[in-house]
């Protein structure tokens, strides 16, 4: 297995609903006109827009924008061995045991970002030596420098050989699962111009009209939309109804037409310093062999699981939760 450390430095920011209008121009530039080496990820959900951007200068300074101070680096697991025997489970589940759990054991906070194409694990830049030390035993560490992949030199930091505490990780944050179903999809970057207005509408404006009357739907219906453009690949997560608004044949729908249910983690904003949250969720899922997407945002984390597995997921997570 190879672990690629990508060369981009990222910031995590959040924009209040009220601030969107002043940021729209910058956001659109980031989202649609970005050159392919940029990371843009925006998940407008409910009240805020979460943005990760390499070229953060595009956004104006405003009291509506809150930026997490840390700089993040993206890691990407590539199965370099070409091990083709098993395609399941996919997503976070696959790397839960090999990456997420060891990082959690070493108290390294991660920010997960699953896309249609792959999973990115964001770690803080200052944690990188520790990350490399932790993962070097299991992965070939490669660093991307100017587009060329080179072997990453080990930094020799051992953090005094802190023995990982192998304590069980109970789930400590409240979980909620909305009733609506989501679709993880992508589209051809060439067709982006034809759906750009639709995407802008969904991202910035359409949510607002329903906002006022939707106070009580927290548990039954979550508005969530995620758009990412990473190295030229577009990934979209939207609820089933939103897919109807797209023209035929633009979205890549899988042959099996699978749909996903969401589990939202956290009642209060989670912050960035707490570690082990992803591990708490992904380990039970990995044990149960359930594929999942996991998307962290500025405030909450979201896990997506196949609709037919939702009951077993809830069951598995409840049993882990100390609040159950």
């Amino acid at each position, binding site marked *: 297995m190879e672990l690629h450390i990508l060369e981009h430095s990222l910031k995590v920011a959040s924009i209040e609903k009220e601030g969107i209008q002043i940021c729209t121009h910058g956001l659109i530039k980031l989202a649609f006109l970005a050159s392919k080496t940029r990371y843009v990820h925006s998940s407008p959900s409910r009240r805020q827009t979460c943005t990760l951007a390499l070229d953060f200068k595009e956004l104006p300074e405003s009291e509506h924008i809150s930026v997490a101070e840390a700089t993040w680096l993206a890691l990407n697991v590539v199965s*370099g061995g*070409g091990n083709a025997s098993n395609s399941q489970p996919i997503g976070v589940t696959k790397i839960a045991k090999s990456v997420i759990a060891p990082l959690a054991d070493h108290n390294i906070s991660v920010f997960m970002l699953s896309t249609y194409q792959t999973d990115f694990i964001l770690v803080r830049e200052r944690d990188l030596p520790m990350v490399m030390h932790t993962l070097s035993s299991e992965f070939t560490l490669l660093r991307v420098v100017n587009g060329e992949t080179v072997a990453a030199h080990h930094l020799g930091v051992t953090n005094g050989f802190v023995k990982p505490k192998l304590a069980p990780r109970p789930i400590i944050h409240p979980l909620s699962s909305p009733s609506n179903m989501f679709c993880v999809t992508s589209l051809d970057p060439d067709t982006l111009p034809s759906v750009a207005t639709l995407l802008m509408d969904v991202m910035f404006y359409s949510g607002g009209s329903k906002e006022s009357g939707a106070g009580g739907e927290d548990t039954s219906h979550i508005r969530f939309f995620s758009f990412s453009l990473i190295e030229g690949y577009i990934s979209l997560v939207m609820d089933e109804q939103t897919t109807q608004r797209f023209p035929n044949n633009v979205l890549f729908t899988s*042959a099996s037409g699978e749909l996903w249910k969401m589990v939202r983690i956290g009642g209060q904003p989670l912050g960035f310093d707490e570690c082990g949250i992803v591990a708490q969720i992904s380990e039970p899922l990995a044990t149960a062999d359930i594929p999942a997407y996991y998307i962290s945002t500025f405030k909450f984390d979201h896990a997506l699981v196949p609709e037919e597995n939702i009951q077993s997921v809830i069951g598995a997570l409840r049993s882990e939760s100390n609040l159950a």
Partner: protein
Amino acid sequence: MSGSKSDILWSPHHPDRYVICDSELGLYRIGPAGCAELKAGTVPLSGETAATLLAINSDTPYMKCVAWYPKQEPECLLAVGQANGRVVLTSLGQSHNSACKELVGKEFVPKHARQCNTLAWNPVDSNLLAAGLDKHRADFSVLIWDISSKFSPEASVSAEKIRLSSSDLDPSLVVTKPLYDLGQNDACLSLCWLLRDPKLLLAGMHRNLAVFDLRNTSQKTFVNTKAIQGVTVDPHFPDRVASFFEGQVAIWDLRKFEKPVLTLTEQPKPLTKVAWCPTRTGLLATLTRDSNIIRLYDMQHTPTPIGDETEPTIIERSVQPCDGLIGTFAWHPSRQNRMVVVSATNRAMTDFTVFERISLAWSATTSLMWACGRHLYECAEDGPEGAQGLLEQDIATKMRQRAQSRYGHDTVQVWRNHLLAGGNDSQLKSLWFDLFYMKQCAEDAELKLQGNKQAIVYSGIKNIVKTSSGTTESRKCWSGSERQTEATRFHSEERGLALRLCGWMGRASDVDVEPFLRSLEQEREWERAAAVALFNLDIRRAIQILNRGAMAEKGDLNLNVVAMALSGYTDEKASLWREMCSSLRLQLNNPYLCVMFAFLTSEPGAYDGVLYESSVAVRDRVAFASMFLNDAQLPRYVDKLTNEMKEAGNLEGILLTGLTKDGVDLMESYVDRTGDVQTASFCMLKGSPGEVLKDPRVQCWIENYRNLLDAWRFWHKRAEFDIHRGKLDPTSKPLAQVFVSCNFCGKSISYSCAAMPHQGRGFSQYGVSGSPTKSKVTSCPGCRKPLPRCALCLMNMGTPVSSCAGTGKSDDKVDLTRENKLAQFNNWFTWCHNCRHGGHAGHMLSWFRDHTECPVSACTCRCMQLDTTGNLEPLDSS
């Protein structure tokens, strides 16, 4: 169709058909443009060809890539990769016949939709179609479909929980289970099957190039690189692969896959297509975006003589097939260097043939060769018999032939050199006779003349007549009659010398012209002999000669008529004879006959009719002048003639200038006119070794001639020339430049003997020269330590080489001297400057006739190959 680039594909089996795909598929047939009226759908491609649109297929939306089924049957079956990852089989221009009916319309659907980037049919197992798709987090990006596989709904549904939407086509045509799936969690941007083995697939993945082996799909060879687009195998070298990234092309060797063998110079704009020419080895065509040129890279391995390292040399050039920007291009699969180019803007097509670079090579001799494409042309000069000998041969050819016939080397009968030169150049003939007479006089003068008189022989008539003194006048009678001539004849020592240099007189004492006349008669130069006789005031002899000429075999009977006219000579001023002769003589063709009458009819002392008759040889005119012009007229005439000759570069003028600075001036203009440095070198070497040879121009001619001989690989001739030169110009002999020094005392082994000739052994004893049988000394004369051993015979150097098979048996002593010389060379010291091993020259030569490596065991030095000229053969016989 969303912004996909157009592409063009030649039919693998019909050399006249191709498909252009952009938003739809168009099948074209290419044909001659000669048809009078352009039919509908015919577009001109070039001056000679036009394309006819045969069929259009717009059934398949969202096309991303197309690949043409490689087998003959069913023809025109195309696989189209779509934006959503589906691969559809379709056909063009076929009535849906039985052959491909069951295949057309078949769809291959990946589990997760994403763009299909590339398609590649397996060239051998043509049921296999590889598709390269974009990345999906959990799916495979390289799917290999078996187009003959049947859909099995029950198995797939249960396994893959298919939820086909109602919009899908006939489910019996949809295949969802690929034969192989490779490259999980990766993106595939380009694919090609390796020609080395049909089970190997080369894929340009997201950040690496990977070779998948279908026999063991869990293994792959891969290399991390950015250059992952457009992988393509060189059809002529199955191990050579090109790929690109942005503007840079990388060339890979699959046998050494760790890094690119070479990367081509980066282009400012991203590349869009890279393709090996299928009809020409090592030719790679590349196209960048928004460009109106196709860049060609010609990669050829050139073996270098030093070492085994060979770097492919690349010649880069670009062609511009059409005016506008180029959208894409495709090489014709079988026509040499031909391609069709589609413009980026308006689908205009151009049929284009890339012309080969023309490489041209002169041989050491005059022939010329050039290669264009697969044709090789040789251009050799026509021999004298070819082209009716109308064209004069090139001077280089002439000099080469002359060098081979040892031109210039006859130092005794100097005049014979003009025969060696071919004997048909009057200037050369005159030159060599001049030199011959000069030599004769000089040798004679040594006996007769005193002091510095010898030098004056070579200083030319111009200088001789200037020193003329003590001229006596005489009025002789016409021989055989009492009538006195009007012409006054002048005599002096110098004039006599001039006549001898002109060849009219034999010896200094001998004033008889008779031997000269006889020799002219022998050479059948009747008119000239008659003129010479007449100028010597022997009119009867002249008439006699003309008669003889008329009667001789193939003689000109008109000479009798001339003789008759001559016999009527009268010195009566107002006679009819004089009047008619002076006017009619101009109509005579032969200049000598003409000047005879000019002489008879002119006033005494005014012989312009003779002196300025340019067709008469210079020597004859000068001889005439030195007989009949007085001391005032003669130098003036000679000066005038000299300047004329110098200006024209006429070698006859050497008679006047001699081998002086004037002579060099004259020769300079001759060389400027002809380029004949050979004659110039040989001629000037004859001169006194003083100033003439020091003239930089002369040195330049000599050096150039030597270089010329070297260039022709006439090394033996060069050596002969150097020997010849050394004899005539001792200062030109180079000093010894190479010495063999003793390993122990560091003294030169030959120098020490030469310096102390009386202390025993002479130089000959070291086997470097002298009789081989006597050479026994195998130690340094300075310190008495043994000389190194020959690597082959293991004897100390200095030991003579035992006569090799060829020389040993030679009982006949025909060429004993040469044999001896060869034997001496066999004894020479030779060693390699690289590995410092060596031995007897003879042994080394015979060793390297069959070997490439040094004879010393464990030494791998390729001594002989280090010597770039060591493998060349001389072109002249020794």
